[in-house]
Every structure is written in structure tokens, then in C-alpha cells.
């Protein structure tokens, strides 16, 4: 049998328990909410860091291996024009050097293939060159009109104007015509080794919050691109160090993590400033299109 005191105690106990659990629930909710915010911010920040750094590393690999200096571009998504950059008033904090005005694109000549061996003798007036494009039995590069070939032994840089024989794994010797005579006699190509490196114009651009890579920035193929990273919010991330064009590209890439970050958690925007240099020096080809 229950006593009075037991009944009263039960009511107080209920109230107190309710209050305690309410307090605990609120505390838990607050803790969870705050934790979620902090975690979301942390994740967003980490993700945005990851986003810009992975994009930067991908660009770095391409620019390091570039065969030319870097040229700024103004890109609309359909048209691409060279942007002659004057010096801005800003100083790059990493190098202490003045940076150029900014643009939303760059172009350069990426290393597309080589070294491949010259396999047919030439005279100074030769405009047709033959290379073995499959030294290991596999054709990894097929020349196209507009590509450049650099013959390092004589530092000749020539533009391919016609393809005379497309290399295949079964017939690896590819033959093409170049814009100007080579200017040299190359003899005994069966015993001498003379090499050529091949370059194809490429570009990066920022459009519609996308960092885009244009692997074949030639003619009508300029508009074909792959997306390196979405969520890029810096409209003109590209600049140069020194004169235009330059071997040193300076990027200021801002990435905003729109998926990981709710409106209230504005912690996911990251700006990465970096200078990426062309590693092959002297750069074997110039920027002439």
C-alpha cells in the first residue's frame, strides 16, 4: 500500500525527472547541433582545401611538364582570346614579385609525346619528317595538324601542317609535313639517334564556377574540355609573375563547398595562392599558335 508521502514524492520526482530530461535533451540537442555545425564547418573547410589542392596539383603536373611559357587568356566559354597582361599593383606574397593583371584562362603547349626517334634522313630543305612513334610497340601519341615538334639536337621548333602517314602499332613510322624546312642534314638515322618531342596546345579556364581543362586547344576542339573542379568562385584566378608570357603562373583559386556547407555554415570557402613554374628550362617551344 502506498503512503501519502510516497505519492507526493512521485509527483515531484516526475516533475524533476521531466525537467532533468528536458534539460538533458536540450543540452544534447545543443551539443549535437553545435557539433554538427563544427563538424560541417570542419568538413567543408577540409573539403574545400582538398578541392583546391587537388586542382592545383593537377594543374601543377601539367604546367611543370609544359613545353612553353604560359599565356593568359580571356575565355567566354565559346571564344578564347589572348590577354596581354600589364603589371598590376599587387605583390605575390610568396615570391615578393609583382604580379600581372588577372584573367580567367591560360594556354600553354603541353608535352604530348616523345622522345621519338627520327627514322629517315633529311636535307636542309626537307619539310617532311618521319619518326618512330611506338618505340615500345604501343603508339602513345598520334600527331595532328597544329601540333609542334621540337628537335632538341638543333633546337628546331616546327609546326605540323599535314599528316602524311598516321602511325599505328603495326606501322609505327609516322610521317608529317612541317611549316618550314628543318634546315639541317640528318644522316645515318639508322645508327645515329636523333629525337623529337611533340607538343599540343592545352588550356585551363574558369567558367560557370568550373575549372576546366582543354586538352586539345586547337581549332574547333578548343571548346572540348573536362571539368577539373566545380565550385570555383574566383572569376579570374590566373596571373603571371614577370613579363607576359611567363614561365611562372600564379593562381589564386577560390573554392566554395556548396554541397557540404549549409547556408548557416559559411566556413567552406578556401583560397589557395600558388606559383607554378614550367620545369623544362629553357622551354623548348614558344607560344605562337
Amino acid at each position, binding site marked *: 500500500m502506498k503512503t501519502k508521502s510516497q505519492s507526493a514524492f512521485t509527483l515531484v520526482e516526475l516533475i524533476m525527472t521531466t525537467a532533468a*530530461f528536458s534539460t*538533458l535533451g536540450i543540452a*544534447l540537442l545543443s*551539443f*549535437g547541433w553545435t*557539433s554538427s555545425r563544427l*563538424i560541417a564547418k*570542419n*568538413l567543408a573547410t*577540409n*573539403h574545400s*582545401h*582538398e578541392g583546391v*589542392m*587537388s586542382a*592545383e*596539383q593537377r594543374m*601543377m*603536373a601539367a604546367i*611543370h*611538364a609544359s613545353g612553353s*611559357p604560359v*599565356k593568359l587568356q580571356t575565355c567566354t566559354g565559346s571564344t578564347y582570346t*589572348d590577354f*596581354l597582361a600589364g603589371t598590376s599593383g599587387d605583390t605575390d606574397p610568396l615570391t615578393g614579385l609583382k604580379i600581372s593583371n588577372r584573367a580567367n584562362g591560360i594556354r600553354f603547349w603541353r*608535352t604530348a609525346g616523345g*622522345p*621519338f*626517334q*627520327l627514322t629517315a634522313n633529311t636535307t*636542309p630543305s626537307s619539310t617532311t619528317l618521319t619518326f618512330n612513334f611506338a618505340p615500345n610497340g604501343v603508339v602513345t601519341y598520334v600527331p595532328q595538324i597544329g601540333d609542334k615538334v621540337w628537335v*632538341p*639536337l*638543333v*633546337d628546331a621548333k616546327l609546326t605540323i601542317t599535314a599528316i602524311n602517314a598516321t602511325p599505328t602499332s603495326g606501322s609505327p613510322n609516322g610521317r608529317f609535313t612541317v611549316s618550314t624546312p628543318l*634546315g*639541317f*642534314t*640528318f*644522316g*645515318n*638515322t639508322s645508327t*645515329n*639517334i*636523333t*629525337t623529337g*618531342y611533340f607538343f599540343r596546345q592545352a588550356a585551363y579556364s574558369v567558367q560557370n564556377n568550373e575549372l576546366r581543362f582543354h586538352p586539345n586547344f586547337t581549332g574547333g576542339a578548343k571548346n572540348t574540355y573536362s571539368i577539373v573542379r566545380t565550385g570555383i568562385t574566383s572569376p579570374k584566378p590566373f596571373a603571371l609573375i614577370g*613579363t*607576359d*608570357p*611567363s*614561365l611562372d603562373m600564379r593562381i589564386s583559386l577560390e573554392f566554395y563547398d556548396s554541397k557540404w556547407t549549409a547556408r548557416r555554415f559559411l566556413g567552406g570557402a578556401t583560397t589557395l595562392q600558388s606559383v607554378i613554374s614550367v*620545369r*623544362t*628550362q*629553357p622551354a623548348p617551344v*614558344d*607560344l*605562337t*599558335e
Partner: protein
Amino acid sequence: MKNNSQSGSSLLAVMFTMAAVSSLVAIMLSVTANNTRMAGRTVHRAEALAYGDAVIEQVYEQWRQAMISVTDATDRRDGLTNSALATKISAPTTAVIAAPTNISLVSAPTVLAATPLLVELTAPSARPAAESGTNWTQRTRLYYVATVAVNFPVMRGMSTVTIKRSFVRSGRSIFDNFYFGAQPVTEFHPGAPMYIGGTAYIGGDLYTAHDFLHFQKDVTFLGTQTMDYRVADSRRPGTAPTIPTNGFGDNWDINNPPHRGSEQKLLDVSTNLMDPNFLDDSSLNDTDSDGNKNNDGYHEIIEEKVTSGTTGTDPLQIDPYLNDDQTGSERLSANSDYRVVVAADNSVTIYAGTSATPLASTSAEYVALKAAITTNTAIKDVRDADYVKLVVLDVSSVKTSSDAGTLKDRVGGGDGITLYIKDTSSGNTGTTVASGNQTKIVNSSTGALVKTVTSGGARGVKLVKGGVLPTAGFTVVSPHSVYIAGDYNTGSNTVQPPSNTASSYNNNANPSPVVGSYVRPPSSVVGDAVNILSNAWNDANSDLALTSRVSTPTTINTAIVAGNVPTRTGSGNYSGGIENFVRFHEKWAGKYATIYGATALLYDSEEATQPWGAASYGAPDRHWYYDPLLSDRNPPGFHVARIYERGRWVLR
């Protein structure tokens, strides 16, 4: 009193709450940790790449030092073996490059000899397989591949990033460029149209102020480019640069303007071994500062080695394997096939090759060369304010003797004929006929004596009838001023090449610089200063007014190496710029002065030292083009410079 079931409910509730909170925290921690680790992986990979790149740079410097410092002849010629190189390459110490936290090299960096196709050769005794193929056997490239592998932490354990770079030693010539400038300051301010149809290498700062300048090929510099006059030039401030007129599209390819480039080597000689007084901008301090008379700047290449007294080491003699026949030097006097020495009494002594014994005056070689030489005539050089006592060389006579085999390629292993001409007389020639040293001006057309004159100390070499050169190739070197009179290496001494007779130039299809199908032999003219006298030049007019010295179009097809007088503060002390790298003495008034060849400004003039402002001439229409034949075959007497380059960068 509570019953058991009540207590259990509370306990369950508490436990449930704790479990829920713990799970939530655990999930948060896990997600956060994983995400942090993933982001950390990217950061660590970036750090590993940067560290690996830094190590590669250190290894490159170790490799370069190892390659340039060996003395063994085979190693210098063919490159170090893998085993020899392995002892020279090591990971940088933490004092030099400290590895980031948790990032380390997988193993010591390696540099292996490779083929031109970049296939690494692993045998300890392997040397690089040379890339070759042109007519010029010294033009080779040796490849090595450096590998640096770096460990960095990932979510579970470690990962590795591997960087490979090719290191290249290439044989390059200063004549791979149309213009090679070794001086700290280079100025291009032509006052008349000037087209540079070849690459230009500026080993310092570049100044371009005039809109007449047209670079048609790649231009690189090591310092900076200024679209104005240099500060020491009296035109700055005060004279506005005209080069911005119409934009820069008419001055160079807008897609490839002059830009900073990599250093190119002049000779296979370290600049550290040279007296710095002779490598700086000013010519006012061109005096020996270290007691070594054999390292006084690149002017040494046109001087003979000093062997008496305190001389010091000759840095131009460091490599006995420069020539195909493994003899020779970078000092052109020592690398010449014949040395012609004219004494104060105008007697001629000739040495063959490296011999210290003069040729007998009855020998066929002496007779042939002596017949090609006229001594003790003079011209007035208005700029130098002196009558220049000349040694006149009839190049057509040398060609006849060389092609007939009388004159031989004694040094250089088949590179052609190099002739070194020096007048050992010094100072005033005297003023009386009785002295025997008085010099005279003769009419270039008739040979008649015009007048006797006194040279105050200027000496020179004048090249005449140089239309057709010895087939094997021909280089003339002198420590004095050299005057090229009339068309040179154009294929004829009488017929004008189209480059002289054209009424206009189309810079994409230039008139031929040779007569008919003449094939230009490789050639160079090297002197303290090099002057161009037109086809209309006559010594008799040299000391008359400019209106009596009117030129006709002239074509010079040769490489030219010379000095200048750098700009000094004060009016009229402009260097003359590269447009006056070759010096003019006539009223050209826009007539064509065509050069197909290459030019190299390597030193301050030490004899022809009067400033450009004292010159008396009217500017020609300069059309200067690079001759690619020079890349295929170097002029006699010159060697390759060994260039060390970083090649392809590959990430794995």
C-alpha cells in the same frame, strides 16, 4: 519505495541516452578523422612533391658540378659512368633541405645514364648514348635521368610519389643565335629600319626604345627589358621612346615578345675563372685586377696566351678534347691553322698550326700566304680619330691556295682554315719616310699612292676580294679592328647578289644573299671591332668628308664576333647599340646593309675604344638574318659550349 522495474527503466534510459550520444560522437569523430586524413593526404602529397622537387634541384647541381669538374678526357667527352656519378650524388642534408614532418626519401636519389629516348642504363659502367645526327660531330647531347622517390603518410600506412627529370649536357654554339650578347647591358635603338631575322640572346638587361626595331624571332634576356634608354644614356630623360607607337605588334610577335630566358654558355669556361673587371658593364675599369694576364675577359679568345712573367692559369685551355682531333683550345690564336705576325718593320713571320718555329720564307705555305698579304697601307677611321695601319688580306688568293691544298687545315680536324693576323708594332708609326715605318693611303681602285700618313697607334686588318671563300670554311681572327671591304661570302667578287640589287625587301621571302647557287662555306670574322665597308669604298676617300664616302648596297654572309664601347654617362657616349655592333663609315642613307650569319658581342673593345658619338656615317637599312647553315656546321676555330639543362619533368 521504488520497485525493481522502475530502477531498471531509469538505468535503461540513461544507458540508451549515453549510447546514443556516444554513437553520435563516435560517428562525428570517425567522419571528421577520415575527412581530415583524406585532406591530410592531399596536403602531405603536395609537401612530398615540393620536397622531391627541391631534392631534384640539389641533385641537378651535384650532377652539373660533377660533370664540369672532371679532368679525365674520356669522362669529359663521353660523360661520367653510373658508378663514378654515384659517388657524387647524395641526398641533401637536413641543414640544406629539411624534410617535412612524416615525409622522407624512399632511398638515396639516383642519376643514371640514359639513351636519347630516355631509357635508363643500369650497368655501373654505362655511359650515356650520345644523341647525334648532324654534319657537325661536336653537336651531341648526353642524357641522364634523375629519380627521387618520396614517402608520405596516407590513411593507412605510407604512399610514394616519384619524380623523374632528365638532365642534359648539350653541345651548343654561340652561333645558334643570330645575336649572342655576353655583356650586362644590351641596347637596340636603331635610327633606321632594322630587321633581326634570328633568335637573340641577351645575357643581361635589354633596352629597346625605337620603333624602327623589328625582332622577327625569339628574343630572350637574363635580366629585365626596359622600353626606354638606359639611365646613363643622355637621351634619358628628355627623349621619349618611340617603340610604343602603333603598339608592339610591329616590333615583335605579340604572342612571343622578348622574354626572360635561360642562361646560355659562351664558352666551356667558368666565369668564376675570369677577371671580373672585364665582365662588368663599364669599360673604364678594364685593367687587370688579379695579376693573371690570361683571364682578362672573353677578349682573351682573340689574344695570344701570355707566357712570360707572372701570368696565372689560362682558363681558356681547360679542355684538350674540344676538337674532333682532340687538340686545340678556346683561344682562337692557339686554334688557328696559321698565325701571321707583322712586325714594326713590316716584315712578315708566319707560324703553321701550334708550331713555335716560323715557316721558312721559301715554303709553299709561306709563299702562298705572303702573296695574299699587303702591309703598311692605311685608312682613316674617323671614329677612332687615327689613321689605321693595315694588313690587307686578299681572300681570293687564300681561297686559291686553300682549295689547291697548299694551305692546310692544320688544327681542328677538318673544320676549315683559321687565320690569325697580328701586327706587333705599337704606337706612332713615325712621320718620315726615312724611318721606314711611315704608312700610306693608296687608292683602292688604282693602287696609286694618295698620301703618306702617320698612324698614332691604330692597327687593323682589311679583308678584300672576299666574295668567294675557301671551300672548307674560313675564319679570320685579329686582336685589332677588322674591316670587311665589299661583299663577303656571296659567291662572286664582281657580280652583285639579289640582296644588293633588290628594290625592296619582303621579309618573308628575302632576296637571295648569294649569286646563283653558291653554297656558303662556314665562316667568321673576329676582331676587337668589326667594320663594314661597302662595295663603293675607296681608301683614298677615307679621310675626306662624309659626302665623299657614299656607299652602295653590300651583303656580308658570315658570323661576326667583336667588341663595342659600352655606354658611358655623358652626351655622345652611347654605345651605338647593337645596330652599330658592326661599325659603319659611309653615307648609307638607307641603302641595304645585309648580313646573313650570326653576331656575338662578347667583350669591350680594347683598341678601338672611341665612343659611337665620334663616328661619321649615315645609317643603312639593316636587314640582318640568321644563317642556319652555321648551326649545321660551326665556323672554323670555334667549338661547342657545353650547356647543362634540366629536361623533361615526369611525375609517377
